[in-house]
């Protein structure tokens, strides 16, 4: 019988399938940050349980970290959370890239940088954007804190098997459309609940043409389509990316690992429960207009009207979003002025993202009244950018060049929008208040964000020549 990649990974990790109850799935890698782990450690302690395999864990501190002066966390509750993470990792001898580590950064940026996730693995983290690691052909998904505790104690999860969805993208992307635009275009089709209950596999020549970093951006957003995880089949690009990294197999192990990874892809005629197909040529640079990632249009489009939706629920959601976002139906996206621009996050905080933005910023200046913030996803990304002179391009253009962290993606660290401010953001969620109470978020790619910072409003980057 033929199998999908998801089914192969599932079968390879099935520890026990009871007659009644959830199957137990083995977890190879457990990623951790300060926000969703403290209660799990506390729970273990209360039950006098121990950690089954500390080597399976890699931790970082990212959500609450100031991006200007990380030595000074003024919020005492945040400080306690950060200190608790450091203390828990020290107590249990867990590998932590803490605040003073040169490897510190956003968990989903840091983990691939060190080759901690390999194809065919099961990877979990108390963070929905764990989906990012599907770019390596690993089954990677977000969990709650009770499940963090469950993995710490048992190295397994009680899981129900998901359905499979093939998302096929074929054709050549224009030089102005990125993985971010592909992700948003897919969500525009599926909606934020379209992937619920599914694991998505992204395939087609558009996907295989994407770099590893671009695949990470795409898989990162799978959760915004409601999918439990996103997957891309590993190929030569995957192996080249991993080879030589800290946690990659070495020597004879490397050859054995690659041989194994090559088997962990969907069989040619594997059956999926659902399939959707997109043409790359149809994907223009995207801008979200509403308060859900599915409320998105091409940059040359207009803000939709409630009457554009036949579905009553979506029409009502449009009414609510227009009110919150202070937009009018029919308004051109390129006429929307912005106050803040943010480039960063686990979606778009990698070196290629800063290169793409710098290309548009070189020799330009940020528009009057606009604040623009660049937050590299990790110290290695920051260092690499500085070695390439990208920091100078950003700074000369009037951008703030900050230290790494989740920053304004979810605004836990003090970097946040004020009531009514409008932001062009390379992050992943435009929910109400996500970037600060009353703040208005428009999701875009790094190049689109850079262009908006210069113009003071959204720009169709295809027109810039």
């Amino acid at each position: 019988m033929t199998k999908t990649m998801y089914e192969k990974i599932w079968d390879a990790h099935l520890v026990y399938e009871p007659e009644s109850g959830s199957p137990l799935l083995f977890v190879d890698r457990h990623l951790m940050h300060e926000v969703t782990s403290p209660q799990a450690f506390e729970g273990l302690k209360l039950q006098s349980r121990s950690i089954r395999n500390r080597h399976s864990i890699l931790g970082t501190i990212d959500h609450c970290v100031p991006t200007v002066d990380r030595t000074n966390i003024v919020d005492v509750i945040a400080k306690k959370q950060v200190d608790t993470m450091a203390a828990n990792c020290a107590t249990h001898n867990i590998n932590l890239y803490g605040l003073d580590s040169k490897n510190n950064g956003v968990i989903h940026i840091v983990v691939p940088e060190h080759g901690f996730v390999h194809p065919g693995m099961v990877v979990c983290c108390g963070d929905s954007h764990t989906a990012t690691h599907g770019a390596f052909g690993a089954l990677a998904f977000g969990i709650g804190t009770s499940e963090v505790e469950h993995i710490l104690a048992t190295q397994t999860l009680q899981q129900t098997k998901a359905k499979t969805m093939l998302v096929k993208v074929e054709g050549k992307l224009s030089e102005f459309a990125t993985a971010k635009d592909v992700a948003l275009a897919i969500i525009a089709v599926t909606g934020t609940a379209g992937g619920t209950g599914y694991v998505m596999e992204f395939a087609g020549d558009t996907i295989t043409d994407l770099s590893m970093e671009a695949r990470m951006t795409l898989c990162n957003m799978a959760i915004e389509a409601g999918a439990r995880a996103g997957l891309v089949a590993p190929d030569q690009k995957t192996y080249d990316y991993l080879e030589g990294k800290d946690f990659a197999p070495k020597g004879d192990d490397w050859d054995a690992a690659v041989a194994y990874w090559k088997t962990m892809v969907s069989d040619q005629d594997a059956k999926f429960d659902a399939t959707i197909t997109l043409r790359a040529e149809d994907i223009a640079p995207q801008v979200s207009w509403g308060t859900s990632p599915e409320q998105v249009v091409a940059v040359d489009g207009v803000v939709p009207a409630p009457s554009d939706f036949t579905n009553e629920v979506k029409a009502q959601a449009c009414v609510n979003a227009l009110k919150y976002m202070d937009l009018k139906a029919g308004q051109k996206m390129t006429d929307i002025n912005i106050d803040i621009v943010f480039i960063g996050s686990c979606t778009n905080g990698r070196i290629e993202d800063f290169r793409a933005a710098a290309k548009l910023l070189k020799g330009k200046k940020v528009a009057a009244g606009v604040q623009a913030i660049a937050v590299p996803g990790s110290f290695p990304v920051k260092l690499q950018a500085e070695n390439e002179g990208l920091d100078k391009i950003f700074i000369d253009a009037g951008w703030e060049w900050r230290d790494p962290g989740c920053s304004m993606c979810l605004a836990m660290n003090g970097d946040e929008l004020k009531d009514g401010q409008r932001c062009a953001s390379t992050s992943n969620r435009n929910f109400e208040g996500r970037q600060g109470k009353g703040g208005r978020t428009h999701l875009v790619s790094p190049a689109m964000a850079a262009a908006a910072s210069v113009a003071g409003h959204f720009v169709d980057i295809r027109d810039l020549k």
Partner: protein
Amino acid sequence: MQPYTKHTSIAALMDRSNVDTDQIIPKNFMKKVERTGFGIHLFHNWRFLADNVTPNPDFELNKPAFQGAKILVAGENFGCGSSREHAPWAIADYGFNTIISTSFADIFFSNCFKNSILPIKVSEDQLAALMAEIAANEGVQFTVDLEAQKVTTPGGIEINFVVDAFRKESLLDGLDDIAWTLKHEDKITAFEEKQKQTLPWLWK
């Protein structure tokens, strides 16, 4: 965990779709290292006016008729977005133990069961009927019987819902998931030993 027992309680109406976990518990309240005390922050940005203290009179859960509600009836795709378990912690701490909707986001759905909350999936027509009954009679009490997998209302609605047998049992008994899994520790050890042989580089 608190066992889930049959109850008759006020059902509050939240006629909104895609209620995300950022709304359920905004991020500024996720810095605590405890599991408790999140209820006062539930739906903070909707629930309070700009001064962050005064209850917003336009927010549905602030209606006098919905005070003390244990059942939340809401629109589709409830709990989407962030995986934060702070969301079900806040919901449970506020006093809800049942959420009825047409659909739930995956991670949130599974987080509910870890916190003695029963998420009930119903059809669009059933949801519309439940919502209509609340709208017509705010403060109405519904009965939820997990044992019989049934929701009944004074208006005569009777819904038989589906729930995974294992999760049902865990809720009814207030069982600890980890204790259940550890009963199968020998199988986990056997799996690990086999993986050490077949994929040795994972263990170096």
